[in-house]
């Protein structure tokens, strides 16, 4: 744009710097606090200069929260959610878009309605289902045949219980659906003419073409999975399945009347929040694309 606007430019920069302080400032405080000694972190006024204690604090936090184990659990859970979501929603979208079937509208609406009700408002019965997976089937069988079955399958304290209910949402399906709709009709036609069936078309053409979509969905699902809080909190009672988010409260300074070691807490929190932030920083282009196109 060819227009000299010195005042507006100065204002723009001022706004951007204020935005930086508001949004990134907290990160800077956490980084500074996490690398200071206990005396420095409790000093008023707070000093923004990072110290050299980060490794010591991080090690202390790591042992206090048993983070090594929790990190592995979080990673497993995140990868399972991500992979499950990417794979299953591609299949569903394929079934909805590429088949002339009377069921496809039913499929579409069945999936669509799940967008409206997040886990939080139905968490109590979802928990009940996970605690006793066969309840619905048992009731159905009892209703139709009158036979009362005594099988139980409990998902509490397992990776399946941590991940399956979180995969049962619609986010990815619509991302794929929108992309599949933009593909030209000639593509499926050509594939058919060359003698390829639907399965081959799906694996050999659709999936390779969806590469950017898959990457976009992977990034948003990674962030979604890693940051899960409520569900693991309810599902897991066995410490060996705890995820990092559940460890946050454990990192709080012990309340024994002494000086609280917030430097350790901050170092631990930093380690816990870091993986998704890194993913977003490195793969930002895909993250933004996934976010914008999956929500609209």
């Amino acid at each position, binding site marked *: 744009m060819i227009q000299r606007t010195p005042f507006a430019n100065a204002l723009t920069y001022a706004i951007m710097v204020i935005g930086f302080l508001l949004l990134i400032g907290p990160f800077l405080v956490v980084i500074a606090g996490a690398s200071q000694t206990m005396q420095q972190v409790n000093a008023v006024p707070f000093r923004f200069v990072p110290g050299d204690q980060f490794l010591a604090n991080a090690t202390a936090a790591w042992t206090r929260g048993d983070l090594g184990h929790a990190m592995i659990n979080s990673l497993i859970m995140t990868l399972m959610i991500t992979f499950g979501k990417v794979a299953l929603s591609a299949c569903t979208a394929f079934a909805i878009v590429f*088949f002339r079937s009377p069921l496809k509208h039913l499929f579409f609406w*069945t999936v669509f309605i799940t967008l409206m009700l997040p886990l939080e408002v139905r968490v109590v019965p979802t928990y009940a289902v996970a605690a006793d997976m066969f309840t619905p089937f048992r009731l159905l069988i009892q209703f139709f045949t009158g036979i009362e079955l005594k099988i139980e399958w409990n998902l509490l304290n397992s990776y399946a219980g941590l991940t399956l209910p979180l995969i049962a949402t619609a986010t990815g399906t619509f991302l794929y659906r929108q992309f599949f709709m933009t593909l030209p009709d000639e593509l499926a036609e050509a594939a058919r003419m060359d003698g390829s069936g639907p399965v081959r078309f799906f694996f050999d053409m659709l999936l390779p073409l969806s590469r950017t979509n898959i990457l976009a969905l992977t990034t948003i699902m990674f962030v979604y999975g890693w940051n899960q809080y409520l569900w693991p909190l309810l599902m897991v009672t066995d410490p060996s399945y705890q995820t990092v988010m559940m460890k946050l409260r454990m990192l709080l300074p012990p309340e024994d009347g002494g000086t609280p070691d917030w430097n350790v807490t*901050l170092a631990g929190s930093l380690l816990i929040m870091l993986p998704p932030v890194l993913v977003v920083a490195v793969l930002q282009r895909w993250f933004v694309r996934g976010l914008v196109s999956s929500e609209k």
Partner: protein
Amino acid sequence: MEKRSVFKSTWLPILFAAPQLLLILLFFYWPVTAVLNWAFTLEPPFGGAAEFVGLDNFKEVFNDQLYWHSVMISIIFAICGPLTAIFIGLVLALAVDRELPGSGFFRFLYILPFAVAGPAGGMAFRFILSPERGLAAMLNEIQPDLWNPAKYGSHALAFVIIIFIWKWAGYTFIFLLAGLQSVPRSLIEAAAMDGSGPIRRAIDIQVPLLAPTLFFLLVTMMTEGFVGSDTFGMVHATTRGGPNHATELMVYRIVDEAFQGLNYSGASAQSLVLIGLIMIFTFIQFRFVERRVHYK
């Protein structure tokens, strides 16, 4: 848009959609039905079959002073948080969209808080806004107890709202920036030719054209404020509903009532109220936002 060229098969689409549909039926539709069932029944205290009690559970919920208190602070939360987050996102998007040298750097950074989990961010803010240390302690240097979220309910509510704003401002920023970039460049240039400066253009052209995005964000953000998983996590990791119920948001209360108070029927009745609320929001979005706000 319907695809013309599709595959014909009756069992293949079912097979492809089956895994996800099964998960959704099990972990979505079944629990939602259970919410309905529990909301109208009451389980006798000494075991036995649940008994149908009509609207009694709702009466009990609505007669509870604390429930209305929680509704009120949820409304405050879900108005103040989203509006401020959208405002900050809008101002930053307008600034970054001018594409002055260096703005790419800020765009890259503004998104990062969104990758942080609510509870982890909450932990950081517990330090930053603590009355004894961190940044807010400087306020208390001026006059003791000028800021103390552990003691004053209004401070605690403000504290939770600040975390919400911090996390979601970057999210609104992404959407508003995407919206701004789809405003035709020629429009802006024509306005510049007519002698309008950047601020006038922002107010008279860009913001009105963003109306659909703004409405979309308002609905999404308010839904997030009422039922978002991060909203629960923020409260749970920081104030735990306190002090004296001052931050007991509706979504927090449901989970607390069910798993601390073991009152499934009351929690389900509250869930149902919240579900009704979301339905209204979704309806508004489809009815008014998608149709009326069109400036093409």
